[in-house]
């Protein structure tokens, strides 16, 4: 190991020896190689295969004679319904992500002010939903929101606050409620990491300069946590935009989004080509939106990037 660093010994290294040495050194991209290989084989390749289905004809599970065709893609892109659903996916994701941010921020902020058992308890409470699958949690929301006997309606009826059961289930409200709750941990965790470690002297400086606690929160605490907000927002946006379970189950059969369309075309209608073409649209539009979020975030947090 030592000899690697002495100039005389490094000259006659074989290319193989060199790459092993570099790998061990942790230089450049080498440490990321195992993860990259894994992703290439088990993610990029299958997705690429899947997406190519959108550019060929598929008949009963086999690729048809015609070869490359843009007809599915053109069909998808010229369908006004597809654009309406993309727009809806986008809005539901934006609103739901904004709601997670609004709910997550106080939790992460409170975490920084707690000590000992209360702190551990909060962390466990934040993480525990991740122990069950999203599917189970979505079904739980059906039980809570659904029908006359659902938890919400029963409580409100018993308290006499409403006359007739509310129709929450199978509406966009139900989708928003479910999606927001299910994605909450993904927003809380990045915020919590940053907010709990923050240096309080900045807030004290703000108080000292005459700002109230509220002004300090909005002018110092929130802007300084902007990098974490952007990270959480991009992450939760991506999972909300592409989520098909929640809109399908809580929105009822009649509530569709672009992600639900991909599922239905592929699994129900068995039109793999149209499904793949829709998936191409879903994936590429998701990239565009996430890129836009990150770009906006970089602009908002340009102070954190400056160098001398």
């Amino acid at each position: 190991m030592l000899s690697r660093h002495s100039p005389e010994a490094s000259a006659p290294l074989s290319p193989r020896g060199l790459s092993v040495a570099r790998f061990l050194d942790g230089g450049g991209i080498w440490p990321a190689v195992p993860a990259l290989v894994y992703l290439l084989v088990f993610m990029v390749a299958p997705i690429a295969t899947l997406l190519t289905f959108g550019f060929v004809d598929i008949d009963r599970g086999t690729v048809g004679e015609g070869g490359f065709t843009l007809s599915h893609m053109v069909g998808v892109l010229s369908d006004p319904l597809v654009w309406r659903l993309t727009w809806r996916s986008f809005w539901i994701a934006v609103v739901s992500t904004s709601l997670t941010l609004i709910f997550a921020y106080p939790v992460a902020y409170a975490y920084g002010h707690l000590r000992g058992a209360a702190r551990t308890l909060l962390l466990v409470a934040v993480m525990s939903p991740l122990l069950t699958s999203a599917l189970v949690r979505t079904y739980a929301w059906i039980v809570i929101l659904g029908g006359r006997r659902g938890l919400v309606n029963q409580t409100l009826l018993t308290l006499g606050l409403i006359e007739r059961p509310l129709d929450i289930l199978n509406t966009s409200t139900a989708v928003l409620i479910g999606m927001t709750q299910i994605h909450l941990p993904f927003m809380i965790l990045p915020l919590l990491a940053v907010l709990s470690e923050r240096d309080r002297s900045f807030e004290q400086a703000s108080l000292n300069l005459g700002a109230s606690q509220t002004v300090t929160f909005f002018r110092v605490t929130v802007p300084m946590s902007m990098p974490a907000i952007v990270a959480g927002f991009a992450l939760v946006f991506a999972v909300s935009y592409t989520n098909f379970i929640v809109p399908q189950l809580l929105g009822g059969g009649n509530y569709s989004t672009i992600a639900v369309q991909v599922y239905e075309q592929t699994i129900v209608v068995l039109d793999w080509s149209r499904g793949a073409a829709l998936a191409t649209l879903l994936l590429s539009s998701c990239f565009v939106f996430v890129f836009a979020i990150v770009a906006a975030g970089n602009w908002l947090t340009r102070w954190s990037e400056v160098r001398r």
Partner: protein
Amino acid sequence: MNQLIIDGVTKQFGALKVLQSCDLTVERGSVVTLLGPSGCGKTTLLRSIAGFVTPDAGRIRVKGQDISRLPPNRRDVGYVFQNYALFPHLTCRDNIAYGLVVRRVPKAEIARRVSQALDLIALAAFADRYPKQLSGGQQQRVAIARALVLEPQVLLLDEPFNALDAQLRLSMQVELRKLIDRVGITSIFVTHDQQEAMALSDRVAIMRGGRIEQIGSPLEIYDRPRSCFVADFIGRANLMPTQVRAGRTEGPQAIAAALPDGPATLVARPENIDLTPGSGPGWPGKVTFLTALGPVIEYEVDCGFSVPVRAALPRHAGVETFEPGALVTARIRDEAAAVVLPGEPNHA
């Protein structure tokens, strides 16, 4: 007129008594330094004035008004943090403007006062940079300007030079003192560097274990320490055990002392000790070590006390030099400059 009066401020963290009835009075426009060893409560006292720490007892008055119960944002006391705490997401200009903006000062006035402050710290050219893009010394100036632009009643600075390298430290000390004199603001510094305290302040308050042990001008404290701790902490001092009998010390040099009979400590600075070769009137001893400091040579002489006597002799022509092992006699040059304290020597 007294700008700031701290009266019996006491603070306990758990079982630890961090501040024990601290009293301090700061005159308008003067610069006071809190000096003391690590953990003696300097920062806690400063934070009590700013309102980040709530004292258990005692009162803090600014211009006669009791501010002890006010929240930090209503105290009108500037605070310069040790790490400067400049807001990283705001430019220099916006950092300096922050206090004015949250006070809803009219825009035109903000612009005027901020550009004035930028001129004061000679950083107008850097106004639109973020704190990260500034050097440590520049960041410090911005932090000071951010506090000064609000024209607070008192400016508090917690070890403002700590993050700077030795070279920059010296020049910033001088610059800061000039700046403070120019705006004439009442200031309290915290430091544990005694040279910094001597250089910067009108008065020095020596703290020890949560108490203020002595307050006075730097020279007063240097010349007339009231305890062995102060003598030892400010500059270097020889603490020699002696006995007082009828108003004079016993031993080779009888020095007047207004103390009752009993054990006492003779305090003499190294530069007030003279060495002569061989034996004579004084404390006989043997040179054990020498340090050539440049302008002076400092000798350690074993005179039979628990710690060696230090003597700093100038390097003029005609002043004798000694080698380790040389037999010498140590004596106090100027008896009037020696201090006699009650009790046995007590080394800090």
